[in-house]
């Protein structure tokens, strides 16, 4: 079997902020990393490989420096890695991204048919969770999102059974291969690369493919292929900015003043006293 894992390089977003003085993005010290959900998908692909036997290819779309996430995939045990990098890919929204990735998966499939695509439920920088369903739809693969367990694969009958999270519980669902799984973090704890594997991975080159290599139409990739555009960015607006009191000038007085402000709303005060029962 052939598994493809999609990995996105993301900024360590907790630290990205707008400087309120200059209204510019503060970049200093922002590191990039592999999207944790995608690394979970990589781990699961390797476990399935160990169980059922398969070839695992990692792919990523991004600038040349995104090859570091593919290096990580190789060090974990991926057999092959392809970086999709082309200036024309820049500015892609999820529609253009899913197009580009699906073209790459098709290209891989021309050499060795792809049975399973694994990707993270979402990327931590955008949180959209749209790219996985987009790829599955374009490729016509069976789509299973929010997967927490791959129960079994039957390579002969070409079937797969997974457990996935749904509203109010879990669902056990089976469907035909080829399929795409978008995975939750609890699916598998990623392994750490051993030193020999790390050294070994350095011998495997990361291939780089551009739009031409995957037969992608220039009208459908990058900003040109993206229906959504950014109009403006801003620090979030202030919603209420109520008064505040400093406990340094007396804890009791500060608490009392704050509560007075809160309880001046009679409906709210009544709700509190009644324990929020109407």
């Amino acid at each position, binding site marked *: 079997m052939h598994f493809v894992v999609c990995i996105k390089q993301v900024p360590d977003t907790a630290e990205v902020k707008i400087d309120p003085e200059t209204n510019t993005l503060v970049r200093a010290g922002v590191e990039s990393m592999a999207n944790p959900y995608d690394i979970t998908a990589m781990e699961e692909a390797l476990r399935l490989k160990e169980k059922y036997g398969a070839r695992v290819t990692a792919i990523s779309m991004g600038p040349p420096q995104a090859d570091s996430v593919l290096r990580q995939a190789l060090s974990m045990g991926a057999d092959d890695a392809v970086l999709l990098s082309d200036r024309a890919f*820049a500015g892609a929204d999820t529609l253009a991204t899913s197009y580009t990735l699906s073209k790459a998966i098709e290209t891989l499939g021309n050499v060795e048919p792809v049975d399973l695509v694994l990707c993270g439920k979402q990327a931590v920088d955008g949180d959209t969770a749209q790219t996985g369903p987009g790829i599955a739809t374009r490729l016509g693969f069976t789509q299973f*999102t929010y997967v927490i367990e791959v129960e079994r694969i039957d390579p002969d009958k070409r079937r797969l059974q997974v457990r996935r999270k749904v509203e109010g519980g879990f669902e056990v669902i089976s469907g035909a291969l080829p399929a795409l799984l978008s995975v939750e973090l609890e699916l598998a704890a990623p392994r750490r690369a051993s030193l020999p594997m790390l050294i070994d991975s350095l011998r495997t080159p990361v291939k780089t493919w551009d739009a031409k290599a995957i037969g992608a139409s220039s009208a459908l990739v990058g900003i040109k292929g993206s229906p959504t555009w950014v*109009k403006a960015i801003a620090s979030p607006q202030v919603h209420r900015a109520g008064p505040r009191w400093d406990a340094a000038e007396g804890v009791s007085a500060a608490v009392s003043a704050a509560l007075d402000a809160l309880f001046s709303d009679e409906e709210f005060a009544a709700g509190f006293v009644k324990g929020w029962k109407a």
Partner: protein
Amino acid sequence: MAKNTRGIEVAEIIPDKCIACQICIGECPVGAIELNAAGVAEIDPEVCVGCGKCFDSCPVNAVRFEKKKRRKIAEEKPAEPGAQPPSHRGVAVFIEIVDGRGAPVSWELAGKARELAQQLDAKVLGFVLGSNVGDVAEEAIFYGCDEIHVMDDPLLARYLSATFGKALSDLCAEVRPEILLVGATPLGRDLAGVVATRLETGLTADCTGLFIEKETGLLLMTRPTFGGNIMATIFCQRQRPQMSSVRPRVFAMPKRDAERKGTVSRHKFEPPAVELPEIVKFIPTGAEAGIDIVRYPALVVAGRGACDPSSLSLLEELAELVGGVVACSRPVVQAGLLPYERQVGQTGRTVAPRLYIGVGVSGAVQHLVAIQGADKIVAINSDPNAPIFRVADAGIVGNYQQVVPELIAQLRNKKS
């Protein structure tokens, strides 16, 4: 100013200022701008025609350009005001069904859709997919829909990406709404990505604000991005419908009006010509599985500044007193103090309690957008510059270990 070989005074990007928002790339009429390997925009001087559009559109003044040298260029006119294809009309809402009833988020969206439809002088369309869903269709009218479009088929009794994806895409192709709103529930997020791809249109996830731009009639969608520290306004110029997903409890629940009238039309469901997956079983999450923080009328939320196991009992005491439960921000989950199910934020839960008390929560945007539906917000933080104070109804600057016991004492008095 730099000139190119044709003698045109071209615009230049100041790399240190560029934030890679790519607005200029979209604005440039000749495609002269691309993101370079360093992740900043770069203008190809030989392609640049010196029109200055990038200069006008840059939100951070990262374009160097001499306005006086601006060259008028013959270009195709951008979209005329209100020039969306007139064949696309109406603001549609996907009505999600949970246990045979409409999901609350769908009614919240119907309320928002009414607002948008009024500005567009259009109708609110409710798209209902399922099996035996007549009651839901009627409810949708009571919550603000004018026209209900139903696909009622036994194959739609349970959700599958393949069946619902095709059904909703087919409805859109037939009814042609200009806007489609979907609740960002697990089901809605699974579905929206499929439908947007099938229709090859733009989809903006987890919007926290939706507006109609007066001049153009376009839907402007704001959402937190870069992990929630920055708000981006997104639009979809050409493709229709303009799709947006919105989390539960972001918009207010509209009043139900059992007198409202509307129409219901039925559409035939054509199943997709693929082998459908089979749902083997559904395992409901037991009550013991954990606490659902969104059900509580009050939340005491521990942040990074109160991420201390020894303080947990103090916060629990406060929570019990105000009739709520302890929740937390992302760093507290990352530290392993509380489980993920207690996390408030864009990657956790969106909440709308009567009372929110943030203890040591600094207020990253991804957290703030998830609490904007709260009735009253109280912030306790030792840092007077913590962003959470900007959204609080009442703030107390100080050490929470002193403030919280005092708060408990005074609240006890109020209750007795």
